[in-house]
């Protein structure tokens, strides 16, 4: 049935439609709500990053965007892959890597040219060609303009970025986007690493909205949990 819809929808010829699995959908909707409907964020753009690599910031960003862009709400969401070191959004969503963010910024082009439409309410900007000088990409004035254009064109912008403790990218973007969500891998990320990431992000004017515990474990069995 869905395949039929894809084929019949002429607006998204270059992309495949993606959705969250039901349980994940529920969880990320809750996360979306606690992020945007609780007055914690200043704007409608949010930066998702982690302290180290492999902690799931891309997955969380993807899940957030998918949960927030459900057609019923009608809000338009942009998911931007600013993880130029190890771009992975296109792999998760099975999209093309280019054209993407890098190409737009280096060529000083229009953001719309790189937008890959996933559904009527969700556009994805993949990383693009990341072989160039990445810090120059981030420093340029065009980044600001790029982000401004996006926040003007969409209701919500979710940006994925490289690990804060390993690369300066997150720090640079935190100065532009301000609202940051940190992703931590439960029982693996040391609290010192998270504290360090927090310090780095706040150094450039970013504001840590909150922590998301990824891969959360519940060691206490249910029958005991009620009693302790």
């Amino acid at each position, binding site marked *: 049935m*869905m395949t039929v819809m894809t084929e019949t929808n002429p607006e998204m010829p270059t992309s*495949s439609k993606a959705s969250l699995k039901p349980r994940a959908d529920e*969880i*990320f909707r809750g996360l979306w709500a606690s992020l945007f409907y609780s007055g914690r964020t200043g704007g409608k753009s949010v930066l998702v990053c982690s302290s180290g690599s492999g902690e799931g910031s891309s997955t969380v960003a993807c899940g957030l965007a998918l949960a927030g862009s459900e057609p019923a709400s009608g809000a338009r969401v942009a998911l931007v892959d600013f993880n130029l070191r190890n771009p992975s959004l296109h792999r998760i969503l099975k999209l093309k890597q280019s054209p993407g963010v890098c190409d737009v910024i280096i060529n000083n082009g229009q953001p719309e040219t790189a937008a890959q439409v996933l559904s009527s309410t969700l556009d994805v900007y993949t990383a693009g060609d990341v072989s160039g000088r990445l810090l120059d990409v981030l420093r340029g004035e065009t980044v600001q303009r790029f982000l401004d254009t996006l926040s003007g064109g969409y209701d919500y912008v979710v940006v994925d970025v490289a690990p804060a403790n390993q690369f300066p990218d997150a720090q640079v973007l935190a100065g532009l986007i301000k609202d940051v969500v940190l992703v931590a891998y439960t029982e693996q990320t040391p609290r010192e690493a*998270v504290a360090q990431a927090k310090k780095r992000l706040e150094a450039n004017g970013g504001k840590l909205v909150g922590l998301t515990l990824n*891969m959360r474990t519940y*060691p206490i069995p249910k029958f005991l949990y009620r009693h302790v």
Partner: protein
Amino acid sequence: MNRTLREIVRILASRFLGMVLILVVMLGAAGVVTWFSPRWYRSETTLLAKPSRMVNPLEQQQIANRDQVSLFVATQREIIKSDDVLAAALLQLDGWDGGGEGPSDQEIRQYIDQNTTKMRQVSGYVNVVTPGGPDATFTQTFTIRVDWPEQRSEAAKLATGSDVLAARKAQAFAQHLVKAYLHRYVQLERQRASAGTKFLTEKSLAAARTMLDSATAELQAFIDQELKGDLLQLINMASTGGGLETGEASLKTGAQAQINAMDARLKELRTLQKVLDTELAKKDSAELVVPDAVTRGNSSVGLLQEKIIRLKLRLNELQPRYTEAYQELRNVKAELAEARSDLRDQLTKQRTRTEQEITLLSSRRDELASHVAQSQKRVDDLAAKAANYQRLQRAVTTAQGIYDAERQRVASAVTAEQLASNPILVTVLGGPSRPDPVRPRRPIVWLNMLVALVAAVIIALAYAFLADHFDHSIKGVGDAERYLGVPVLGSIPKLGRGIVRVR
């Protein structure tokens, strides 16, 4: 409280697998080790200990009998587990057959050098116990326990009757051990006693003898050099009770009386001299008054006085007949005057004599005083010598006493050695028991398992809490807020591979 309890439960639950693993591994290891540890055959020999009543003559204080028994058993344990005894027993077990007294010291030494590991092993098989615990002091029996392990080799297991052989071996070893022990014990006792005697006869007695000799020599030297002729006097003084002090006092009082008498006489003479001086100072001889003392002491003065009185009477008689006998009168007058001048002369002479006497007397008095002082000094000297003499004599007496006691002790030590050469201090009450070959002894499995369980639980708990303490990872919402001060937006549980479905 609730939160702490939750923390503890969380720590335990999150390391549950590791803890269970530790428990299982430790219990399993304990079980396996206990199960496969060697069984052994036990042979026991009970001995009655009669601690020797013979006390060490050098030891002043007697120790209590209880302590003596305990000490004795402890000593026997050392002897039984000593290399010498074990080696002797092992040699005999291996079929040594030299007859008589058992293996010689040289053979034993050689055996020990060649089988060090075996010696250590066998030493572990042997144990000495007392009923009522290892330090019981209320018993005089002790038990030699031989725990001989069963053969572990496959060949030994396959051989028929190997268990019977092992049991028999345990008993045989126990037998040889007791024999070797008793032999060694007698040998040691003999050595100890003879060493003690040797020490007493050679060193202690000689020391006492030397002390006595030196004391005597010292006394003799003192008598020869210091006392010389005074010895008799000293002995006399010492023997006549009060002795020195009384003699000295009598000497002093006699001389003092003499001096006092001389002093009185001198005083008398001096007054007389004064009187004579005043009389002689008179110009007119007729006015001379003769003092009684002079009259008593000098007969010529008395005669002169009588003559003067007679002449005076004659003068008075002649006075009326002055005229007739003028010539006679003049003669008498002249004679009177002559007599008076003679009296003056006599008095003058008397004065000179008195003076001479005073000089003589005072010189004699001084002499006497110096004599008294001299004798005092001599008495002091004598007293000092006497004290020294007494001290030396006492030293000689003491040395003599010690020497006598020492000689007595030597005599008793010789007796002790004679006793020890045939000591009947340990008696075998029950011979080595024969272990049951069918049922060897084995460690108690459930007890070992219980100990292992307790240890494992402790180790598992320590592991869980330590691991949690050193793990700084973020474990939950509480951690994030406590350590970072960051609110948690949400938790994403493990959702499996791929949360996105792409079509």
